[in-house]
């Protein structure tokens, strides 16, 4: 072989050898770099701690002059430079500053490219590549550049960037190594996150244990206490240090129950059959001082591998037990009282018409217990004749939202009729919705007794009246008989004197004079009687007729209600005062009301509506009218009505109307009656205003 050939051959071999040596050197460097990185990541506990060493290891190991770590600022959706490194020989002050200020969106610049694509980006010369955006790189003499992503799966956590002072051709092997490093760092970050989460969890668990209101006690598979939280310390009176390691049974289970506890625990361990685990139960526990108290206990098995351990949650329920007992006693008392007094309570939400009632209501309404309570059900029990009254009262309550009270009858399925008194108090719930809370009492027996009493009372009143009438008659008789007696005697004497022969004229004159005198005396007696029972002594004052009417309604409302009369008032607002005797006018109003009620007593085919109203009558009069839907009066009856003893009633004297008319006439007013165009009649009176009285 010629020399030049051998020389060339040697040179080639030498070059090949050099290349192999260089290649081996590079492999070793990469290996060294990867080792350094693995060690760094293993030893570091935060990214901040790991980052400078990572950058230096890669930069030194792979011959780069400047490096940086970019992480995602997820709030601004950009990447920012958090760490930089440079070779000692490089003046990187300006470029460092620019990089630290820079931010790149996804796809923007070389950093954004690595972020967007999730793979390394290699620039042969950053100075001539438009993808590189930081001009000061050129001033620092930086040319070749690479960025690669820190990956967790396909998710880019950050980007690592390196630049060098030389133009660098892409090196596929280095790219592969750097890609692997990117993955390693990604896993490191994930590890940090998991560890942090674990630390958080531990801290949270400790915080929960410490601050829990419930006692939390954990035990191991031998039944020994491993955890005893502050609430448990407070409740049981032990310090944690005193009881950890002791058998749970010896600490908190009363001596009498320890056997059961230990048997149950042993059975669970042997068979897995749990009577207590996973359930909530009430048991007795014991404190350090030996006192026993009720606790609620829930035991759960801690889901960990290895021998079973358990967590017990205990709560002192002494107070709850006491209030439960008090509540039970109070409920029992209420139920008993309701039973004894035949009273039930109810709650009515007006907006939804929902009704809730107490147990006694089922008995009163004779409804099967447990049936849903609806108005339909209630109405089906109400006496048909009282339904209009009940509807009227409910409509009124809905409208004005005021307390109400009324009585109605109930017709039970067996046909028996009961009398109920309803009282309700209006209130508002949290949302301002109208509600009524009230009671319903069965007053059948009471009303029966009252009616019997009332009968006795009216009989008594009748007897008293007859007796006083008798006394009155005797006294009037005496007053009148004396002069009458004188008149007859004197007249007899007079006749005899005149009939004598000769006539005794003087004597006759004397006796005739006495006769006249006694006649006058009798007339005086009658005058006194008229004064006693007549209209003398009437107290005329200014009277508010509306107010007087309201008082009469208040006095007679229960009587009207007992007669199932539905009363409506239509009192004029601007009514002038009238001139009159308040009591007498009220007697007239009462008389008209009771007459109207009486006239409707036989009405069963329609609601017994009664309307009492006041209004002005012309300029100087006030009119009051009472309208009923009763039997009215027959043709030509209007005049008869006012005769002293006319009556359409079976009982009663019917004297009221004539007295009423004379009272009204003594007030310079008039009282009249007309039949309605519909059923019933309207009685009205009209009297002068008080102003009119003063003018006269």
């Amino acid at each position, binding site marked *: 072989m010629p020399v030049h050939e051998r020389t060339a051959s040697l040179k080639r071999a030498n070059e090949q050898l050099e290349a192999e040596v260089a290649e081996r050197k590079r492999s070793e460097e990469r290996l060294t770099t990867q080792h350094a990185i693995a060690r760094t990541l293993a030893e570091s506990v935060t990214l901040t701690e790991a980052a400078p060493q990572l950058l230096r290891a890669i930069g030194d190991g792979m011959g780069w002059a400047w490096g940086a770590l970019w992480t995602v600022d997820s709030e601004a959706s950009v990447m920012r430079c958090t760490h930089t490194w440079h070779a000692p020989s490089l003046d990187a002050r300006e470029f460092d500053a620019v990089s630290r200020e820079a931010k790149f969106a996804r796809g923007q610049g070389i950093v954004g490219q690595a972020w967007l694509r999730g793979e390394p980006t290699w620039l042969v010369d950053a100075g001539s590549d438009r993808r590189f955006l930081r001009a000061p790189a050129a001033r620092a003499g930086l040319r070749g550049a690479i960025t690669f992503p820190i990956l967790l799966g396909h998710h880019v956590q950050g980007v690592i960037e390196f630049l060098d002072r030389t133009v660098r051709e892409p090196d596929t092997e280095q790219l592969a190594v750097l890609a692997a490093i990117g993955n390693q760092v990604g896993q490191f970050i994930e590890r940090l996150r998991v560890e942090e989460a674990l630390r958080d969890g531990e801290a949270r668990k400790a915080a929960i244990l410490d601050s829990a209101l419930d006692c939390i006690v954990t035990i191991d598979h031998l039944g020994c206490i491993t955890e005893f939280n502050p609430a448990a310390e407070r409740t049981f009176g032990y310090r944690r240090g005193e009881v950890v390691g002791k058998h749970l049974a010896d600490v908190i289970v009363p001596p009498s129950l320890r056997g059961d506890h230990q048997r149950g625990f042993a059975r669970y361990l042997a068979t897995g059959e749990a009577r207590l685990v996973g359930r909530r139960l009430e048991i007795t526990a014991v404190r350090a001082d030996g006192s026993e108290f009720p606790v609620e206990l829930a035991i759960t098995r801690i889901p960990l591998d290895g021998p079973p351990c358990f967590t017990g949650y205990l709560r002192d329920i002494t107070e709850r037990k006491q209030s439960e007992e008090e509540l039970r006693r109070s409920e029992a008392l209420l139920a008993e009282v309701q039973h004894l007094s035949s009273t039930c309570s109810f709650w009515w939400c007006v907006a939804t018409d929902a009704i809730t009632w107490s147990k006694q209501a089922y008995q009163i309404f004779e409804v099967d217990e447990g049936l849903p309570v609806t108005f339909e059900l209630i109405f089906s029990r109400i006496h048909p004749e009282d339904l209009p009254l009940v509807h009227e009262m409910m409509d009124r309550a809905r409208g004005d939202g005021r307390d109400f009270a009324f009585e109605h009858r109930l017709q039970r399925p067996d046909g028996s009729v009961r009398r109920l008194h309803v009282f309700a108090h209006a209130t508002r719930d949290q949302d301002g919705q109208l509600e009524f809370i009230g009671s319903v009492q069965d007053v059948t027996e009471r009303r029966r007794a009252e009616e019997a009493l009332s009968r006795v009372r009216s009989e008594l009143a009748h007897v008293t009246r007859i007796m006083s009438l008798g006394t009155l008659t005797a006294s009037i008789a005496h007053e009148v008989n*004396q002069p*009458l*007696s*004188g008149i007859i005697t004197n007249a007899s004497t007079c006749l005899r004197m005149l009939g004598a022969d000769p006539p005794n004229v003087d*004597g006759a004159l004397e006796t005739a004079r006495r006769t006249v005198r006694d006649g006058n005396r009798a007339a005086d007696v009658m005058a006194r009687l008229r004064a006693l029972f007549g209209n003398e002594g009437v107290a005329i004052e200014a009277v508010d007729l509306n107010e007087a009417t309201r008082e009469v309604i208040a006095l007679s409302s229960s009587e009207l209600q007992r007669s199932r009369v539905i009363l409506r008032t239509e009192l004029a607002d601007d009514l002038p005062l009238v001139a009159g005797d308040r009591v007498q006018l009220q007697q007239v109003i009462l008389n008209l009301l009771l007459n109207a009620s009486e006239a409707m007593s036989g009405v069963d085919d329609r609601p017994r509506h009664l309307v009492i109203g006041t209004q002005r009558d012309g300029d100087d009069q006030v009119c009051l009218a009472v309208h009923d839907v009763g039997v009215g009066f027959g043709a030509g009856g209007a005049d008869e009505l006012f005769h002293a003893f006319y009556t359409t009633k079976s009982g009663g004297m019917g004297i009221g109307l004539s007295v009423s008319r004379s009272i009204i006439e003594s007030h310079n007013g008039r009282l009249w009656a007309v039949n309605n165009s519909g059923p019933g009649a309207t009685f009205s009176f009209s009297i002068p205003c008080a102003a009119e009285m003063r003018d006269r």
Partner: protein
Amino acid sequence: MMLTIALVSVIDDDESVRESLPDLLREFGYAVEAFSSAEEFLASDCVGRTSCLLVDVVMPGMTGPDLARELTLRRYEIPIVFITAQGGETVRPRLLEQGAVECLLKPFSETALLNALDAALRVT
């Protein structure tokens, strides 16, 4: 047979009676003395001479029935005709039972008065 005019004594607290009744009785033909009270009558000298007594039931002080009892005690047997202005129907039977000749209710007629006097004087 001695002819005497029978004396009728009238006792009443009402002046109009004392004024009118004696005149009528005199027209009938009797002698009459009038007293305003039972006490006044008892104190007078007429008690022994009275043939018939016309006396009010209700008077201040001694009442008519009181006087009747007093006269019985004193052993006078004078026929008594009561006159009254009130409640006569209830007291009349009792007074008759106790021995009164009659009980006239004011106002009474001339005939009723004459009948009562006839009955009283026939007893004697």
